[in-house]
């Protein structure tokens, strides 16, 4: 039947369309290139660098040169080595912190949205409390409470505090989705709430969830940089934020060591900006209204 042939073509289109647009969307392309490129640098880079980031290997305060691509610090550490290691920890914090926040936000959001009623009100309250607590302040306090601060603990802390908006958004979306007929149908099939959330509701928010992950990832990187900058970062490793902190602490502005503080900030901007731009691109892909603009 001709109609059937048509339909098949149509389906494949619908499913592939998103991929097609995603791969053709310049924003997604540019954004991903930046993010993935820097990630690769952070992951692979350290294997090619002999020095550890804090080692004094070169002359002090030297401008970028062939030997030291990004110059050296006030103590003669190689800025490029630090930069590469910093990238690595930024990505680690970003992904771990983002993931934790995502999981919490999702759980709270789904539970509140699906259950409704008292459970919802309670979780809403919890969300509000976390939202009301001055996150930065609490983070600082908790960070200082942890005697030894590592990238992981930092990520956990960030994760524990950045979920509320995800929870809110997921809750709102769940509210609308839980009234869909197919949810009722799943109930009529004797499915438990957990199964319904996982198998009926969540897949329908996939694009949205993906974007939340992206935003959380970027947010966690920024937050971590902020903490690092005020000296609440991981104590024994190099991060992009702590590079800026060190640069400031050792008067790089006045000594003219711009190569010390410009690259880390630029990298964060690029990563987060790249993520955001990817996000817009994806948004255009998933939301045809924006695509047509």
């Amino acid at each position: 039947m001709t109609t059937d042939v048509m339909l098949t073509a149509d389906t494949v289109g619908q499913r592939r369309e998103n991929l097609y647009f995603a791969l053709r969307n310049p924003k997604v392309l540019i954004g991903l290139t930046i993010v993935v490129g820097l990630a690769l640098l952070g992951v692979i880079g350290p294997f090619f660098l002999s020095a550890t980031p804090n080692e004094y290997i070169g002359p002090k305060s030297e401008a970028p040169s062939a030997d030291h691509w990004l110059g050296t610090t006030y103590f003669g550490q190689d800025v490029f080595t630090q930069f590469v290691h910093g990238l690595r920890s930024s990505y680690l914090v970003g992904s771990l912190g983002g993931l934790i926040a995502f999981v919490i936000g999702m759980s709270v959001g789904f539970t509140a949205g699906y259950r409704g009623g008292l459970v919802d009100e309670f979780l809403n309250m919890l969300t509000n409390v976390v939202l009301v607590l001055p996150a930065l302040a609490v983070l600082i306090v908790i960070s200082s409470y942890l005697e030894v601060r590592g990238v992981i603990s930092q990520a956990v802390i960030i994760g524990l505090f950045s979920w509320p908006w995800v929870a809110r958004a997921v809750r709102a979306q769940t509210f609308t989705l839980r009234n869909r007929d197919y949810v009722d149908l799943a109930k009529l099939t004797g499915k438990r709430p957990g199964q319904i959330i996982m198998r009926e509701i969540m897949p329908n928010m996939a694009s949205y969830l993906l974007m939340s992950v992206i935003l959380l990832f970027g947010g966690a990187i920024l937050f971590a940089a902020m903490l690092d900058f005020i000296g609440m970062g991981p104590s024994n490793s190099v991060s992009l934020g702590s590079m800026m902190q060190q640069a400031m602490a050792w008067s790089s502005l006045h000594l003219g060591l711009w190569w010390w503080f410009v690259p880390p900030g630029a990298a964060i901007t690029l990563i987060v900006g790249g993520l955001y731009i990817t996000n817009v691109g994806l948004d255009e892909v998933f939301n045809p209204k924006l695509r047509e603009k």
Partner: protein
Amino acid sequence: MLELEKVWKSYRVGSLGSKKLTAVRDVSFSIAPGEVLSVVGESGSGKTTVGKMVLQLISVSKGAIRLDGEDITKTGKRGLKEYYRNVQGVFQDPFSSYNPIFRADRVLEMVKESYFPRVKRSEWDSKVEDSLQSVGLEAGAVLGKYPHQLSGGQLQRMLIARALLLDIKVLVADEIISMLDASTRIDVLNLLGSLKERGLAVLFVTHDLSLANYISERVIIMRHGAIVETGATGKVFGDPRHPYSRNLLASVPQLHTKWSENPIPVVELEPDGDRSRPPAPLTKVDERHWVASVG
């Protein structure tokens, strides 16, 4: 077989649930095997709510729903799963009854997963084929497709096939044809007809009086959450006693007769009152015909 006794439902509405809205008031009725019972009424009269309560998708505020004498509002989770072996539903919007991102036949697969986990694949496949057959679908044409690749009629029929996989006794059909095209709706309607011939009881929720008339033996007319008139279809539609029923019938557009040709004067109806009070009682006006007294 299925019996509702003095069922009430109120929703909490307004922000933070500050208000109560009584959607269904003191509704009692029963359906026998092989019978189609239509529920008609204006938008918001509580039809869907009744259907969902029968399906236990929403809780009952007061009253009892009995299947073969057992009050299912009291059974727990396990009991509910058993209940669904007997009572299933199909909803208004065929497209939203399917999760758009999965293949349509997933609804069938889910039934296997929940109720027939041990049935062999081949056995199951033939069972599916049979039930698709009985709703007039060709397995090859619908299996493995995504919802948007199928027509509304196909989707609705597949949902009915899904219900049939379970050997059900009662089907709740909530406006299952109102989203369909004029021509496909007939297919679905005729399917319901054949189901009833097979002994299924159908609760047919609709706002289209002509369809109700076409398919059902008995009808319930609801207004403001309560029953205003009920009885055998022929009697109710042929001799509507309640002013609301009359208004309703007069408003139905019909082919071949224009409104202008036999103008029925529209009667002013009493407005919506205090819904928490019990509604006007039904009085028998004829054999198999009850009407609520007009206050």
